[in-house]
């Protein structure tokens, strides 16, 4: 059957809305990426959306003093390239006073009162000629309109990763995040199966307890849990600020949601499949391992993404349980440090920020279909 295409107002409005939402979500990220690979001078001079066009900047240079004059045929000459070799910059116009910057074109000759003539070429070479020797002890100022071509570089990343400690922080964050994602999933999967499919006394109260824990604010339990950890750690001889501590903390804070999410998903699996497996001779552990776990992959993946993103972006728990030592500082904390110490160096902040978001970005984009499916856990029956 052929469907009649309709270009109704509401359809257009819908598409425009979607387009708008996509743009406001993706543009800032794009801007951050573009900014982080721009030359640091250009970054401060103009916005990222001008990154592909030549920028103009007013600059002022001072000519050399008389000592650098060279005798040439018929007089004396002072020569100076204004730009570094290979910078591809050029001159748009120039002048000898700030308000005359647009007065002369490249290659124009301007005569000075003492009879000498000065000119600036398009390539930025300054040529000053006089028939009598120069005697000035202070160079005159030349105002130029410099045309700067776009320049992209990974120097910012090199600097941030190597000398600003972001590389080490990146590794630290990975060290925190991976175990803090997988430990709770492992525990929660077992708990969720038991709460969904095993018949034992107090099961419903236990589940109600888990739901109750969902609403306990993290900030409230942070310090008591830390104290408990330190006291137990003191008995066992474990240092107070360690990776194990932060793993356990994230596990604890993540477990209620994990158990709740996974239990709901597992409870939605058809009962007859479990019964069939029981009749086939499967124990609870067999059913969990061979039936429920493979069927729960969408929910497991969905929670893994949740937990991964949350731990990756976490600052508070890491600060409290891990501290800020160089060998343990996480990315978010390092970024905050940079914001304080190098707040004016945008090239460092943008590249640091992008390094921070690139992993969540990749994780989200590669697993988003699980993300959506897992959020709908239970409401849509998976084949």
């Amino acid at each position, binding site marked *: 059957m052929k469907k009649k295409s309709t270009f109704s107002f509401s359809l257009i409005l819908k598409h425009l809305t979607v387009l708008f939402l996509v743009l406001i979500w993706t543009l800032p990220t794009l801007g951050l990426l573009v900014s982080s690979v721009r030359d640091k001078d250009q970054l401060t001079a103009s916005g990222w959306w001008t990154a592909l066009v030549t920028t103009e900047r007013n600059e002022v240079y001072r000519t050399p003093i008389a000592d650098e004059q060279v005798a040439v045929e018929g007089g004396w000459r002072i020569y100076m390239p204004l730009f570094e070799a290979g910078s591809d910059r050029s001159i748009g116009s120039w002048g000898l006073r700030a308000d005359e910057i647009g007065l002369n074109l490249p290659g124009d000759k301007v005569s000075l009162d003492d009879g000498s003539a000065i000119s600036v070429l398009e390539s930025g070479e300054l040529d000053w000629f006089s028939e009598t020797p120069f005697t000035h002890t202070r160079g005159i100022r030349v105002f130029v309109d410099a045309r700067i071509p776009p320049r992209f570089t990974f120097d910012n990343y090199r600097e941030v990763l190597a000398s600003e400690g972001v590389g080490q922080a990146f590794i630290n964050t990975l060290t925190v995040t991976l175990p803090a994602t997988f430990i709770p999933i492992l525990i929660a999967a077992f708990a969720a199966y038991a709460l969904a499919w095993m018949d034992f006394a107090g099961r419903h109260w236990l589940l109600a307890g888990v739901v109750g824990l969902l609403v306990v604010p993290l900030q409230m339990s942070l310090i008591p849990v830390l104290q408990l950890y330190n006291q137990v750690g003191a008995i066992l001889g474990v240092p107070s600020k360690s990776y194990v501590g932060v793993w356990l903390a994230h596990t604890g804070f993540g477990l209620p949601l994990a158990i709740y999410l996974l239990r709901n998903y597992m409870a939605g699996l058809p009962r007859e499949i479990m019964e069939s497996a029981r009749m086939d001779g*499967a124990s609870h552990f067999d059913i969990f391992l061979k039936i429920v776990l493979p069927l729960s992959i969408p929910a497991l993946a969905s929670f893994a993404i949740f937990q991964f993103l949350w731990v990756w972006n976490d600052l508070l728990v890491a600060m409290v349980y891990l501290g800020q030592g160089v060998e343990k500082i996480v990315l978010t904390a390092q970024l905050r440090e940079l914001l304080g110490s190098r707040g004016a160096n945008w090239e460092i902040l943008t590249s640091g920020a992008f390094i921070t978001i690139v992993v969540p970005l990749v994780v989200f984009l590669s697993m988003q279909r699980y993300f959506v499916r897992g959020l709908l856990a239970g409401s849509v029956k998976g084949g």
Partner: protein
Amino acid sequence: MASISFEKVVKSYGDVNIIRGLDLDIRDKEFMVLVGPSGCGKSTTLRMIAGLEEITNGHLKIGDRVVNSVHPKDRDVAMVFQSYALYPHMSVFENIAFGLRLRKLPKDEIHKMVHDAAETLGLTELLDRKPKALSGGQRQRVALGRAIVRKPSVFLFDEPLSNLDAELRVQMRAEIGKLQKRLAVTAVYVTHDQVEAMTMGDRIAVLHDGELRQVGTPLELYDAPQNVFVAQFIGTPNMNMLRMTLDEDGKTLRHPSVSIPVPPQWIASANAYKGKSLLVGIRPEHVRAVDENEWHNTAALSGTVEIIETLGHEIIVHMAIEGSDTQLISKMDAHNTHTVGSVVSVEVHTTRIHLFDPETQQRLTSE
């Protein structure tokens, strides 16, 4: 040897009794169908045999062993579920092999057993497929394969055909029957469809409200229903049930629209009801138009046609008759051109009526 016997089995959830003292013997190698309306406890009964439901009271024996507290896997039973309950992430082969693998059988033996079962059911081509790539009938076959591969002594079926379309259902019905006879195992089959029950069962157990109403072969149930419930449950369309008064002489049953002489085989038991009322059951096929039967003992009546259901080979006519709230249903020749609203004359085959006590709803004894 896998007979199954229920001895005063009770199943209750809290205060609610689902099964109230069930006594039932299922013989070895018998195809027993449990039938009844939804909520009658037939599935619960089946699940008790499977070991998926605990037994509140009484004994359940498989063979000579009381299995009340035996784990499902040790009962030597296999079950086919209504929704097939295939493992969606496993191929057909893995589905069938699942139970064998859990029993840690050697690989080559599993391979052989699975292929044997697959061949029996015509699944050999499909062994590598996932369940979602199979049609409903094929899934049903895989579920069967999973049950037969372990060579259990009891098969349990929980409405296995209710998700199939009509044509496939007829085909699978025959296949399941043949399979059970060939494998020579005891089968217990739950259904709410009385056609399935009649065609498949060696014997049928009719359950209602957690109680066993009658057990017997399909024809026994049809010819001699023990109570009003069974009489109306078995047979399509439902048996007509008229409340009639027996004359003081015990010879004639009277109704405002028809009088029926008491058939000889009923006279003795009807004696006790002289001057009282009786429930008279008449199957629709025993109510026919005057020119469409060759019965010797008939009673004539007439009614107004209210509904006509055309089935092709026959029509089913619902008639309003005087002195009765319920319609009288009659099967007639399809080429009988009645119209709604017309008055038709029909005859009742008087020797084929059933008599029930109006109080107890039980069948009177006939000779």
